């Protein structure tokens, strides 16, 4: 074997990547070849110098900025398996509600006669048609009811951490809806205000559940059943 073939083996030897057979051949060659021995030593020395040079501390990047960039980079392409764009269910309800409110503001500002309302500002429910209000509230209850039913039936029995994580996100979105509806409708209907208050409490608890060992799920089950929240929702739906 020529020196040229051994050059490659010298480097593999330094990284302990030679087979036993190749190592024997290399060392037998090194015993006879001064030039290869010198090359082995100079390579070892160069790599050693590289190791001894202090690399300095790894800087700490702005993790939050990086996350924001990643999140923004994902936005147009966030998809679920199967190729459909991922849109959470509550987003449709929230978007519908937002359109309804903007419409309400427009109606109030441009088409209704101006003048002070009894409490200084007109409630949206005063402006929108009863059918529109009924629709918004119905959709809200449709979103809330399945989640509450699950807690009412099972407590935490069948829930994994992933479920809790999904529930937390859904509850946060539903809380916003609930708050908007409460502001819009509470003044007109005290019973409804009471129901929306209970929902507000329950959704806040769900939005803050941290793990399945916590006592919250069973406490929630008690609240939902004791306050008859589900039957009140279903009763309201029939109106």
């Amino acid at each position, binding site marked *: 074997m020529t020196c040229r073939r051994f050059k490659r083996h010298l480097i593999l030897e330094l990284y302990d990547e030679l087979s036993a057979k190749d190592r024997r051949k290399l060392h037998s060659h090194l015993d006879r070849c001064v030039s290869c021995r010198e090359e082995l030593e100079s390579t070892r020395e160069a790599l050693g110098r590289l190791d001894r040079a202090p690399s300095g501390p790894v800087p700490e990047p702005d993790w939050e900025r990086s996350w924001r*960039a990643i999140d923004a980079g994902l936005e147009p392409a966030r*998809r*679920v398996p199967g190729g459909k764009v991922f849109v959470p269910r509550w987003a449709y309800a929230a978007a519908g509600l937002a359109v309804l409110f903007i419409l309400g503001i427009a109606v109030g500002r441009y088409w209704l006669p101006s003048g002070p309302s009894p409490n200084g500002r007109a409630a949206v429910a005063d402006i929108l048609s009863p059918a529109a209000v009924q629709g918004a509230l119905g959709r809200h209850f449709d979103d809330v009811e399945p989640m509450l039913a699950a807690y009412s039936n099972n407590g935490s029995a069948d829930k994994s951490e992933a479920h809790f994580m999904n529930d937390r996100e859904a509850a946060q979105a539903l809380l916003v809806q609930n708050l908007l509806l409460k502001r819009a409708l509470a003044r007109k209907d005290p019973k409804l205000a009471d129901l929306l208050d209970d929902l507000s409490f329950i959704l806040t608890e769900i939005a803050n559940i941290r793990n399945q060992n916590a006592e919250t799920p069973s406490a929630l089950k008690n609240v939902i059943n004791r306050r008859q929240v589900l039957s009140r929702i279903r009763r309201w739906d029939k109106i």
Partner: protein
Amino acid sequence: MDETILIQAAQAGNKAALRELFEQNRRRIFGLAYQYTKNAEDAEDILQETFIKAFRSLASYRIEREGGFGAWLFRIGVNASIDYLRRHKARRAEAGEEALSTVPAQGSDVDPEETRRLNEWRERIRTSLDSLSAKQRMVFLLRHENQFSIREIAHELRCTEGSVKTHLFRAVAALRVQLRPTTVEDRS
């Protein structure tokens, strides 16, 4: 939390799960990118590219096939680093960027002469590494600094062991020439 559950949630588009995966793996990926580029800004770009690529292809991730999310992500990070350097090498060379941060003299007991020598040496290492191709540089980094075996590197880079050996041989040969002692000081 169990990684399987976390990944399933992330695959379903759950933002909190994606964030958690980022939190768990960000340091390792940034560390790799910084080792590779020796530049914090470039490393941050690579970090972002890696996670965006990974999260976009999460649907195709199979736990049983990939050997863990961390390993899969690391592989994406390796390839993102190589791609990044290929794209930006020309620009960096043109701009004459200071890739390695210099070591500032701190305190009264630090010898300014020693600091100067250290910075010069680091600059030589940077120049030496810049003389390597993107792939040679990654092979060298994984083998020399991260102690990956040649077989593992071949797996990471999806190439043959022979190809890895060739890259390593060329990288070390180039570095040996570049880092040859040139002064009496260097020999000491």
